[in-house]
């Protein structure tokens, strides 16, 4: 036993302490509990992984029977293999840095203890998700992180927009969970177990479904769940709104960890997906479409966090593209590098927002590189990492995905390359608008405290060099080697697409600042449509939300319930009124008389029974 349960137990304890007593604790004490619990968890991960060595086999720990009934027998088990080892390090490592950062970022905010209680609770559920040894325990973590996401997006609960965004996130995720839970039920019926080990060993000898069958259906339902959690088409709409939450939340939950849970879950289910090539194609195409579509929206946004949010959606699409073309380890590789540079982008953006006393509009920034140089430098590192500049982390993982995509279907590679170009453009557009030119706002920018800049620095180093952590090789025993031939010309093309994006941004926002507006005017209606995020929210409102709400009110409630059923009931109502009147007389206020009525009623009934008679 390596006491895996301690890994999530530390943050759970932190949550309980800060949640129950935090109001009475000093900020320092809250910090110690919050950071300390995540630090202990991180250290325990290191100790466990050191103790487990090369992890050639999965290490399972069984704790207790959770639900047992009929065909269901689910126990609460944790397990570690190489895939979860990678995720554990990402979650606790990045989580620790963001917790430290948040002590600086949130220092002026009300509800300090509440914030850290939720953050620790999130860590508990995220670690449960990663450690789960069966689908139902994974589902516990899955729902739990969704809950924390809801609570933290709505952290500024007096703001209606924050409450709306939190609710939207929870409900859209629940739509995804609808698919995920049906998949779980179907797995149970098909394989008689939810345990990863058992399910995967049972699927091994089964035939690959070249025509859709049960496994394909299971996998597509799993993908519906993943699309909810990881913000893929058509369920991505909650993630941009989720930026209503405090920025450390955006970094931790809505960039580095929780939103990659869908990728993790699909990667975890690789043995199932390998038997369902149709489902894999669905994954790849959904990922690719999401990547392109959200990248185009990212080109047009002015809110710095929204730009990075659409970028997250787009990068998640990349990860699904990787999974869908069978390059699972490349997908997970991108999960890791993305955790580095996207956490950094958000934390850097947070540092900018902090410096500008809450300003998020890129049009009101500019020229900040001299005023907040550390933030600028670190953000710049993140920008070159995500833009695919070799040999930094984003280049390494994106390349692995693109090569695998080309091997699968060349057109997927080309779409991916175009997206890479757009990615470089919108990230550098944000960098240039924020840090170059002249300052267009009215605040008094100041550099952030050490508690914020040190995590930025560490993440900058990871963004630059993190690609050399060879995740694909480490995961090879799990997913098998991925044999996309190395093709230098393809690599050069994708790097050039990134370079083109950066240069174009340089041209638009540094060399000829008026050009961007001219172009957007030239493409008026199209630009408008993209700027309005293709009006997908409005479409959903008009076709789903409003019809459901109004239909329920007018047809079901007032029409059917009150109109028809109660109409019939009250129609028999002359009778009702008659008896009602009689009963009103009875209600003369004397308990004794009520009691008498009770007794009388009983006697009448007994007499009736006797009269009806019966045989002995």
């Amino acid at each position, binding site marked *: 036993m390596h006491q895996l349960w301690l890994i999530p137990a530390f943050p759970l304890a932190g949550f309980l302490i800060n949640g129950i007593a935090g109001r009475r604790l000093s900020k320092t004490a809250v910090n110690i509990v919050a950071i300390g619990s995540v630090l202990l968890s991180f250290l325990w991960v290191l100790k466990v992984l050191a103790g487990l060595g090369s992890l050639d086999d999965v290490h399972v720990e069984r704790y207790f029977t959770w639900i047992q009934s*009929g*065909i269901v027998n689910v126990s609460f088990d944790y397990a570690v293999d190489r895939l979860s080892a990678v995720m554990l390090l990402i979650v606790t490592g990045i989580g620790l840095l963001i917790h430290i950062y948040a002590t600086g970022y949130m220092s002026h905010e009300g509800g300090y203890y509440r914030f850290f209680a939720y953050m620790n609770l999130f860590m508990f559920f995220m670690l449960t998700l990663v450690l789960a040894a069966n689908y139902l325990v994974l589902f516990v973590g899955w729902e739990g992180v969704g809950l924390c996401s809801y609570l933290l997006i709505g952290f500024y609960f007096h703001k209606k927009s924050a409450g709306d965004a939190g609710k939207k996130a929870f409900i859209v995720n629940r739509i995804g969970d609808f698919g995920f839970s*049906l998949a779980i039920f*179907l797995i149970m*019926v*098909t394989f008689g177990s939810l345990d990863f080990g058992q399910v995967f060993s049972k699927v091994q000898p089964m035939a690959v479904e070249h025509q859709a*069958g049960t496994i394909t259906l299971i996998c597509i339902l799993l993908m519906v769940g993943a699309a909810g959690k990881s913000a893929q088409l058509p369920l991505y709409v909650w993630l941009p709104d989720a930026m209503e939450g405090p920025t450390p939340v955006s970094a931790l939950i809505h960039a580095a960890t929780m939103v990659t849970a869908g990728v993790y879950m699909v990667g975890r289910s690789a043995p199932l997906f390998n038997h369902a090539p149709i489902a894999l194609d669905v994954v790849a195409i959904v990922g690719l479409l999401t990547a392109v579509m959200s990248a185009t929206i990212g080109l047009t946004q002015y809110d710095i966090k929204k730009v990075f949010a659409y970028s997250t959606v787009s990068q998640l699409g990349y990860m699904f593209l990787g999974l869908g073309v069978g390059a699972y380890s490349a997908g997970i590789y991108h999960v890791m590098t993305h955790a580095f540079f996207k956490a950094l982008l958000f934390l850097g953006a947070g540092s900018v927002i902090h410096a500008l006393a809450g300003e998020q509009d890129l049009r009101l920034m500019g020229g900040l590189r001299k005023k907040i140089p550390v933030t600028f430098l670190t953000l710049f590192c993140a920008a070159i990492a995500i833009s695919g500049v070799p040999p930094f982390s984003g280049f390494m993982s994106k390349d692995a995905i693109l090569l695998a995509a080309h091997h699968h279907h060349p057109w997927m590679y080309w779409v991916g390359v175009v997206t890479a170009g757009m990615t470089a453009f919108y990230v550098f557009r944000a960098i240039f608008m924020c840090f170059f030119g002249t300052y267009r706002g009215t605040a008094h920018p100041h550099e952030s405290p050490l508690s914020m800049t040190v995590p930025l620095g560490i993440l900058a180093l990871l963004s630059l060099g993190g690609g050399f952590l060879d995740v694909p090789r480490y995961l090879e025993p799990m997913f098998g080697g991925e044999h996309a031939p190395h093709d230098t010309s393809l690599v050069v093309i994708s790097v050039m697409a990134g370079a083109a994006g950066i240069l174009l941004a340089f041209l638009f926002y540094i060399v000829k600042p008026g050009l961007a507006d001219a172009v957007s005017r030239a493409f008026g209606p199209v630009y408008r449509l993209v700027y309005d995020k293709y009006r997908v929210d409005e479409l959903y409102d008009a076709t789903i939300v409003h019809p459901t709400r109004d239909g329920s009110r007018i047809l*079901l409630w007032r029409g059917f319930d009150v109109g028809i059923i109660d109409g019939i009931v009250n129609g028999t109502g002359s009778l009702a009124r008659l008896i009602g009147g009689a009963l009103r007389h009875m209600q003369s206020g004397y308990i004794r008389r009520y009691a008498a009525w009770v007794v009388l009623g009983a006697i009448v009934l007994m007499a009736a029974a*006797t009269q009806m008679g019966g045989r002995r």
Partner: protein
Amino acid sequence: MNLLDIVLFLPAIGFIIGLLLPRENTSLIRNFTIAFSLLVFVVSLGLIPNVLDNPGGSSFVTDRVWIEYPAIRYHVALDGLSLWLVILSTLLTPICVLISWKYIQKQTKGFYAFLLLLEFGVIGVFVSLDLFLFYVFWEVSLVPMYFLIGIWGHEKRIYAAVKFFLYTLTGSLLMLAAIIWLYNKSGTFDLLLLTDMIQKGRLALTSGESFWLFLAFFFAFAIKVPLFPLHTWLPDAHGEAPTAGSVMLASVMLKMGTYAIIRVCLPLFPNAAREAAPYIITLAIIGIIYGALVAMVQPNMKRLVAYSSVSHLGFVILGIFTFTQTGMDGAVYQMLSHGVSTGALFILVGYLYERRHSLEIADFGGVSTPAPWLSTVFVITTLASVGLPLLNNFVGEFLVLQAAMQVNILYAAFAAVGVILSSVYMLWMVQRTFFGETPDEVKRHVFDMTGREWAAMVPLLILMVWMGIGTQSFLPPIRANNVKTLEMVQPPAAAINAQAAPVKAVVEVRDAN
């Protein structure tokens, strides 16, 4: 005279003593009722070990003649199905006293006396094994609830009370007719005896006969559940009832219906039940979705929670009529879970009412600023209600949906829509009530939870977590009893079908593609 008899008759004794107390001494009445109901609860805990030791059989059996002719027996017992329902009833009664402490200002004596009479009635329903005795308790529980709504309710209380009474009475008259019909055929009211006679073929009912008898019983029980479309009394009853009335109604009385379906309908009329199952499941699933949709648009909190009960109880019915171990276990677990979390919701809504004197969601907003703990507890209860894992409702819903998948993938898919909708209506209410700007009226009147209010909520909060994680504390007796019920329901050949079911479901999935 065994422990079960004591637990059953203690509330009746309390009712009588309560009537003898001086009307004007309110504090004496309250203190007496809380002490007495706590006593009943503590004594009832003594029932647990025996049932756990003998989960498949009956414990605390008392079977003696009550009336010679017609042959009505006082036959009571406790088993894995009734145990937790009895405990739930004895737990909720003192909680109801606590939450009525300040809320009930007029005619306190009558109120608390009726509360104990109600406890007597519902425990009686859960332990009776003689159909006539069962019927008497069924009616005994109806009367105090009628008065709780009619005297201590809100503005439209008379309408609501009469509607409640008439709906239930219509059902119970049909049930009475069916009981008497059975008696005429067999000469006994004894449920176990009747079951045995039917199983062994000594009481031959034509299939038409058993169909109509099944329908009569089922109709009475379905009204109580309530099953769509027989539910329209529920929003009115809940909307107008005082908090304690709503709590007892939702947590305990609705379960009388689902309990009775398992206890009476399935063993007596297994064939009719199986034939009717697809239709009943359809109604249950309509109820799940319909209840959720209508809950979503309710402007009144209590009516919202009432419609949510229609939705949640639909899961119970669905689980029962899958006739699988998983589904029935899930159904019974869902009955208990719903009792805990919906009871808690009504209590919390009652707390809000006591502060703001309104149940309209629009009259609230930003409550979490003046009352952070009240909001926290409300959110936890909401999460339990929407089926978040590690909390109570998840277990029942999971098992029921799993069983639905075993039978037909479409059942599972449609019912699971209800899970999505539950988070829609609950979170929307939470948001409008607790978050956002705080209006002046709310600022002025709303304060955080008091010690007495905590005392009422803490046991329920503990149960939400305990039932969500430690299911092994509660499930084994339920399971053992359902094994027994299923043996009676399944025709001999069905055992094979049950094993083949998974394969069949898979094949259906294939066909669907």
